[in-house]
């Protein structure tokens, strides 16, 4: 009886517990034998397993062997923990809790993410509120006319004033745009 589950049994007669009761194959029995050997079985299949094992020598042997192994494994002495284990671990946990630990992405994911989300929400609401106030302020200010806007462009200190000068040459226009100041030539030809 050395095969894995799902393979045909060793050729021993299949046991059944009665004419109309559940028939347990050797493959089925092996899983239950593993549980029976370590006493973690259930009542629902216990009778069927008993019936099968009583009629199947291979499974009976397998059950005995499994019990032997369980007994040896359970007799394994527990490994002792060294006296310094707790102290060394405390140091490592302190490190993990400190700045080094904060760098761990899981900390950010699980602990800081909600805070970050809350801050983002506050920022969003604040920004939205500021936009509303700006909009209100703009509505209360008298609207600027096109003439006023054009005259503002005639300010000689403004580079864009060159745009309004009919006499401005291509060179002076380019110079004003590059330097951010009205060129000397353009200023002398400024429209008054």
């Amino acid at each position, binding site marked *: 009886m050395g095969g894995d589950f799902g393979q045909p049994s060793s050729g021993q007669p299949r046991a059944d517990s009665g004419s109309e009761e559940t028939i347990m194959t050797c493959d089925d029995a092996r899983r239950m034998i593993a549980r029976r*050997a370590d006493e973690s079985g259930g009542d629902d299949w216990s009778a069927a397993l008993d019936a099968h094992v009583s009629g199947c020598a291979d499974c009976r042997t397998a059950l005995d062997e499994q019990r032997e192994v369980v007994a040896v494994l359970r007799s394994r*002495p527990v490994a002792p923990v060294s006296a310094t284990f707790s102290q060394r671990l405390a140091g490592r946990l302190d490190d993990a809790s400190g700045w080094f630990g904060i760098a761990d992405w899981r900390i950010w*994911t699980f602990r800081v993410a909600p805070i970050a989300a809350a801050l983002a929400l506050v920022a969003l609401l604040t920004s939205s509120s500021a936009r509303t106030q700006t909009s209100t302020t703009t509505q209360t200010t008298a609207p600027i006319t096109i003439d006023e806007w054009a005259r503002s462009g005639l300010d000689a200190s403004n580079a864009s004033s060159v745009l309004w000068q009919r006499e401005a040459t291509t060179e002076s226009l380019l110079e004003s745009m590059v330097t951010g100041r009205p060129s000397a030539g353009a200023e002398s030809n400024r429209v008054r």
Partner: protein
Amino acid sequence: MDADRGLVEAAAAGSRDAFDELVRRYQGPIVNLARALTAGSADAEDLAQEVFVRAWRSIAGFRGESTFRTWLHRVALNVIHSHRSRLGRFRRVFQASSDPEGNDASERAPDQSDLEEELVRRDAIDRALGTLPDDLRDAVTLRDIQGLDYREIAAALQVPIGTVESRIFRARQRLRPLLEPLRRR
């Protein structure tokens, strides 16, 4: 009902005291597991420490879908598997393994305490476990060494219970001839 639930919730909220209590409860079983799954390696305590550090870092994400004990064992298996994988690569590169069964004597330093029968017994069992494929070794260790029930093992290994039963059965079959000398003691 998870007996550790209150402590786990407190630890997840950032309480080191609560987590320290969890460490006190589980340091023995986790060191024991690390030794069993690394054939008594001298690295077992370091691995156990790494288990708790990882658990502390990720406990806030523990959603309580299983017991803390099951979850901690899953963390431990991940840490130990990574260690074994690194060790395997190292051995392949440097051809350091002198034992085809993977029981490299250099992995554990000779220790005077090995003379004691108890330690010899544990060492023999750990070495026998070390001959098993990973999936069989994990299953039988969690059941017969750690005492987890079949449902907990299925959750820790993330496989169906039927697979757990099958693995445990096959693992014991393979272990039986190796453990035969210990049975007579």
